[in-house]
């Protein structure tokens, strides 16, 4: 029982009273009226949420996750928004027929499940209302900080510059037809066993080329060092162009599994990183295999290009071309690793494969929240962590160690290079 000093009591006391408005309702004959106060909470309970027509939405079942719980993906066909919902949320969704009030829906929930979670309905309604959950444009923290400091002329100037750069965004929402055509006229070959075999052969040739390059590494780096500016620009430019093929592969994989490519474009990520992007969130409606193939398709481009560069560079005579190919190959391998490595707090392709395998779509978010809010009290109380909590803690720890390792490695390379 809550005592007088209980924090929850204090929170309840600090919370403002529910708002009330007074309305006046006239009688039908026009003579006379009555006024009554309506509390927001009763209006909420009496509201009758109505789901969109069945023809406008699609529900797909996802495989059981960590806890063995079945989840679903709900798609709004008109806006192409997606929402992951649990079994109880699916039950509530089905009750939202426009005839049942929230109070009645809550009662139905209690009768069905024998208990009631008071947060589930508001949380579900908030989720159902969220229209842009899966937008491919990341919100920039930098922009938020600049917006908060508009009084500062420097921040204002930086914001204006970023705003101008953001206008460089080029987007096509009709790109699906283009990718469907590319797929039809040859793209489909990339998803055949022959393509897989060809990649394996190329990787073997690339490995051979890498061995050859290793024995001549001194000459290769010397050739690059003779033309440093040209080498850096060339390597960076070519790498940047390969980002397009990474995104194109994601799009083709999406088409391969008969899902829709929602958007393809070019944007200045965070206002200053030029990048291409593709919105293939429709793949969530496909099978797990499809999602994993889609996530792998992009990074495999880097493996292909790295193997190609290495296999061509290996037999070449030392020079700028050989150095350029070797540096490009290293950059491509690095991209492959970065794309597939899931433990870095970034939601790259590897992360998507991991969360799909674990059946924990909000792993990063849950993990950060768990560590920030619950881990320490749990450890202090000596309570044993559940399987899911171990996964959250492990993800957080691995990501932290990985980032620290990355920083240390870079510092070591810089120090080593400056000494050399």
């Amino acid at each position, binding site marked *: 029982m809550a005592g007088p000093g209980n924090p929850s009591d204090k929170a309840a006391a600090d919370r*403002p009273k529910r708002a*009330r408005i*007074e309305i006046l309702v006239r009688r039908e004959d026009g003579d006379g*009226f009555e006024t009554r106060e309506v509390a927001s909470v009763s*209006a909420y309970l009496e509201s009758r949420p109505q789901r969109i027509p069945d023809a406008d939405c699609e529900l797909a079942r996802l495989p059981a996750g960590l806890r063995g719980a079945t989840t679903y993906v709900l798609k709004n066909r008109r806006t192409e928004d997606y929402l992951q919902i649990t079994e109880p949320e699916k039950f509530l969704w089905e009750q939202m027929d426009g005839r049942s009030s929230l109070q009645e829906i809550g009662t139905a929930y209690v009768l069905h499940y024998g208990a009631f979670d008071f947060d589930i309905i508001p949380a579900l309604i*908030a989720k159902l209302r969220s229209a842009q959950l899966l937008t491919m444009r990341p919100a920039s923290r930098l922009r938020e900080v600049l917006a908060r400091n508009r009084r500062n002329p420097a921040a204002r100037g930086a914001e204006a510059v970023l705003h101008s750069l953001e206008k460089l965004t080029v987007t096509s929402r009709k790109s699906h037809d283009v990718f469907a055509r590319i797929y039809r006229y040859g793209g489909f070959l990339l998803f055949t066993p022959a393509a897989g075999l060809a990649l394996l052969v190329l990787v073997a040739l690339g490995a051979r080329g890498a061995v050859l390059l290793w024995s001549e590494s001194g000459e290769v780096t010397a050739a690059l060092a003779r033309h440093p500016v040209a080498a850096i620009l060339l390597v960076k430019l070519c790498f940047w162009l390969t980002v397009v093929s990474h995104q194109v592969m994601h799009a083709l994989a999406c088409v391969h599994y008969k899902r829709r490519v929602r958007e393809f474009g070019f944007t200045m990520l965070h206002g200053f990183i030029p990048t291409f992007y593709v919105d293939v969130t429709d793949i969530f409606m496909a099978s797990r295999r499809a999602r994993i193939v889609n996530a792998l398709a992009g990074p495999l481009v880097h493996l292909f290009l790295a193997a190609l560069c290495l296999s061509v560079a290996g037999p070449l005579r030392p020079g700028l071309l050989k150095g350029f190919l070797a540096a490009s190959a290293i950059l491509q391998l690095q991209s492959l690793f970065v794309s597939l490595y899931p433990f870095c707090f970034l939601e790259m392709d590897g992360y998507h494969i991991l969360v799909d395998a674990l059946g924990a779509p909000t792993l990063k978010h849950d993990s950060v929240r768990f560590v920030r809010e619950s881990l320490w009290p749990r450890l202090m109380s000596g309570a044993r962590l559940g399987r899911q909590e171990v996964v959250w803690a492990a993800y957080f720890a691995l990501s932290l160690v990985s980032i620290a390792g990355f920083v240390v490695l870079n510092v070591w390379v810089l120090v080593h290079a400056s000494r050399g």
Partner: protein
Amino acid sequence: MASRPDVTFLRRVPLFKDIDEPTLRALWPRLRERRVRKGEVLFRTNDPGDEMFLIFSGSVVVSKPVTGRVEQVLKHMVPGEAFGEMCVFGDEQTRSATIQADTDAMLLCLHRDDLNRFIEANPRAAARFFLEMARASFKRLRDTSDLVAEVTRWGLEATGLDVEHK
């Protein structure tokens, strides 16, 4: 108004509280009595108007149409309060809200022409009158902005819209 001047009542009306007694006695004959029964609508939003009213007894409800037969209650007014002055002095000569009697009520109404004549004849009293009217307008403005905030809060709570965590 035929009855004996009720200076005590006029002093309770903020608009007239700083005006001297002889001036109020002179104003009294210009006030016309108007009785309304409980539930009766005195005027509706957008009706034309050229009078302001003082509530002598009873109470009225000020409301604004929302939808169908439903209106938002803006205020309950009690004896000593005045309304309708926006129509007399404002740009638009139409009523900005609907007034209906909450109980049987007696109102004193002052026509625009009578008020203008009173102002022209009593410039010092007019200055005090307008000062009080400005104060009353500021208070209404503050009350209205508070109401807007409260109605917004109501809307957020009633719809369960979680804007803080979105």
